[in-house]
């Protein structure tokens, strides 16, 4: 891969992610029996936000918000260039930590609670991703993401349980019900909009764009479970995406404690059992 391709990836991912978000809103609307917004709605939103005036409460908030987007992109680049998956998880964590710090930087009770919840979401989701790195190593003999392209059998076949665990944490990463507790697409939250309560204008737009990138990252993670032929992986990713939408629309939002308990018991358990089974 050359720099140019990486550049295309970095620019293209948000666009694709935005489009997928538009489709998400359309499908969600249809699941609720509504017509829903046009598919390009996320782009309208972000362009509008970019043109809107913005306020900030202090400089560090702005700094960490940029850092959130930036490290999300770094994580994307690591993934796109098929590098070390463990490092990818670290970069993703840095991105989420930055977001939490951006929320903490304002002395707003809503952001504060949101940031704390974000941290617990990291706590809930990161282990499974790290396990995935180990699974990659065990299956391919390398921590590099590129390894999955070298083996013939899809990762899914050796790690069905881990795949389930990944699906479980995808709900968290995609901020979908039942685990959309730190900030959700839907406004009706007990903590208003959580971390993003204090962002406005272009800063909110930055956050939205970061979410788009995050979505692409998430889909790539699913894709890795079945890379050969490539369309199988794409189908798998889209299937998982649709499944998340269904779950989002049929589950009530669960509570913080339930989330941590569920992901640690099931996510951890399933991954570990699968990895142990694989090594034996």
């Amino acid at each position, binding site marked *: 891969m050359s720099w140019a391709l990486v550049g295309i990836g970095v620019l293209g991912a948000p666009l694709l992610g935005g489009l997928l978000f538009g489709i998400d809103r359309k499908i969600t609307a249809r699941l609720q029996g509504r017509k829903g917004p046009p598919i390009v709605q996320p782009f309208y939103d972000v362009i509008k936000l970019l043109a809107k005036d913005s306020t900030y409460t202090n400089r560090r908030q702005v700094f960490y918000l940029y850092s959130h987007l930036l490290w999300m992109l770094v994580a994307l680049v690591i993934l796109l260039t098929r590098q070390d998956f463990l490092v990818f998880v670290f*970069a993703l964590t840095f991105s989420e930590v930055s977001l939490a710090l951006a929320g903490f930087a*304002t002395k*707003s009770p809503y952001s504060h609670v949101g940031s704390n919840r974000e941290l617990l979401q990291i706590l809930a989701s990161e282990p499974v991703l*790290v396990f995935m790195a180990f699974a990659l190593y065990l299956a391919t003999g390398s921590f590099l993401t590129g390894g999955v392209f070298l083996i013939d059998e899809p990762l899914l076949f050796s790690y069905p349980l881990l795949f389930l665990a990944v699906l479980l944490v995808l709900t968290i990463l995609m901020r979908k019900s039942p685990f959309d507790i730190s900030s959700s697409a839907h406004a009706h939250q007990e903590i208003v909009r959580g971390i993003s309560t204090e962002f406005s204008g272009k800063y909110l737009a930055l956050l939205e764009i970061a979410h788009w990138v995050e979505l692409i990252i998430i889909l790539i993670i699913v894709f890795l479970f079945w890379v050969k032929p490539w369309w199988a992986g794409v189908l798998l990713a889209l299937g998982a995406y649709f499944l998340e939408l269904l779950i989002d629309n049929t589950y009530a939002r669960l509570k913080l404690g339930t989330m941590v308990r569920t992901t640690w018991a099931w996510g951890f358990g399933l991954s570990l059992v699968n990895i142990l089974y694989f090594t034996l």
Partner: protein
Amino acid sequence: MTWNQFLLVALALPLVVALLNYLVRLPQIRKGSIIVMALALIASAVWLHTRVGDNAVVLSFPWADLTILILDLAILAYITYVGIERRHPYIIALAVLQLAGLLYIELGLRPDVSEVPSLVIDRLSVVMYLVVAVIGSIICVYALQYMEEHDDRAHPEERKGRFFLWFVLFLGIMNGLIFANNLFWLYFFWEATTLCSFQLIGHDDTRESRDNALLALFLNSIGGLAMIAAIFLLVNTFGGAAASLSAVVNSGLAVLSTSFLIALAFLVIGGFTKAAQLPFQNWLLGAMVAPTPVSALLHSSTMVKAGVYLILRLAPAYSGLPLSTAIAIFGGFTFLAASLLAVADDNAKRVLAYSTVANLGLIVACCGINTSLAVNAAVLLIVFHAVCKALLFMGVGVIEHNVGSRNIENMEGLAARMPAMMLVVSIGVFGMFLPPFGVLFAKWAAMEASIREPLLVALLVAGSTLTALFWTKWLGRMLSTYPREEEEVQPVSMPGYYVTSLGTLALGLVLLSLGLPAVVNGLVLPSTMTWYPPAIQGMSGLNLAAFSWANYYNPEIILGNAVVPEGLFPLGLLFIGLLLMLVIPMAFFEPEKERVGDIYLSGENLDEGPLPLYFAGAMESPSKVSLGGYYFRGVLNDRTVLSLNIVAAALMVMMIGVVAS
């Protein structure tokens, strides 16, 4: 410079400076002598680094053996005296047992140690010496200013003299410890660090500090006893020649006798106590009552590092044995448990202490994994952890003096009041768990190496996520400011000593991380090369030696084109990320053009004007928004600590069981 001259600088100079400060209590003398000593130590470290090659330097001073023995007995006698005076039966018992053991070995077994080299200086010692000398010296400079501000009620000058006596002595003893090869010498330095830490923890002479000093003495005496037991087993079975660290290490699998293995286990347990592994962590937490430079010294470069240093050094000896796996699991468990406890604490210094315990656990786990990658990761962790922790402790010390509290909650909004400290602490915290800093690199290597033990993988994964939780939580509290707080609050200015010491360390941390390949190739790999030559990499073929400068910053590798089979830490890419993180906000953020907005308080803000963060509450009364961190006390409380300790103790018993069977 000759070796003798070097030893004069490394061992005798601190002793002299310590005594000088105790006897002549003049601030000018104190400052001058300590700064000179610091510079001399740093210079000697550089000299040592250039001087020691792949072959260890062996130095023998048989004439000093008797002196060492007498000093040993003196220390033990003193500890017994303390135990009697403070009516602590366990300390008395432990000290008397050690005394009896030592006397029995010397008089009953009469080992012939004339063949045993007193000191051996190899590359690992060089790494340790660099850590102790450089970081220790910087802490000394910091302490000069800190102790000026420290509240010593009566006879301030006398107390300062006493403080610097033990403080500087500590450095010298630590230098001895990392060179010692003769087990009796090692034991002496070991006990001397115990003594120094006892004196320093009790420095404030309050009830609390005296109690905690006693606790440290008690728990470390267990380690001392373990060491005596190990020496006894070795000398009893193999004769005097076995009382040599290098002999123990090099004998390796050749002497697979039970008593050798048990001796090995005892030595490791001795290391556990010093390294404050669960269930011995309490002395380190109690030590937090001491003045901050002491904590910084204990955590970063001396006491606890002595513990892991010993375990690390012994790693080749137990390589491939069940003991090794047991150590790995034990370390992993400590890593997880300490991280968990750190989440529930709101005392900044205790959080740092738990984090130290956790990281030492990780180092121990690496030693237990015992592959080239893992052991190199352990060395790297020792180096970077020392830098970060020294920085963090010193930062917290400054904050504590200004805020008047160690409670994390009281540090809220520090970013506005002490922006410089915020920067320093942020670097320290980022250094502990975020890419591309060294600790994370080492953690990455450790995790990739841990693939050998799936159970260990689980422990490390759980522990490392918890790490992110408590660090971010703390940093978040400090960042939290209300709009316009910066304009309203006067930033606190910083004395030169602080700027020098903290600035050096912060800059050093960034530079060391940037130059990771140099650190790996120049320091870390050579220090393990003797036992883990790159040719026989561990099970995971991941080869740290392949990661040269060229590799890290090679665009081809950043782009993932080069085929590196096992794993790769794309340092260059991560640094580009870090750089952009600093540049982009500066480029796009125009604070003048934008409005500072009040925070959202559901429409009931009263914070225009003199009442920041107030909202109209019930009956229109102004109520203040207050924020509190999450500590999960419902789940993590004393009972959790107790059960974790029990599990740790059980693991340790099992470890010995594994060895004995």
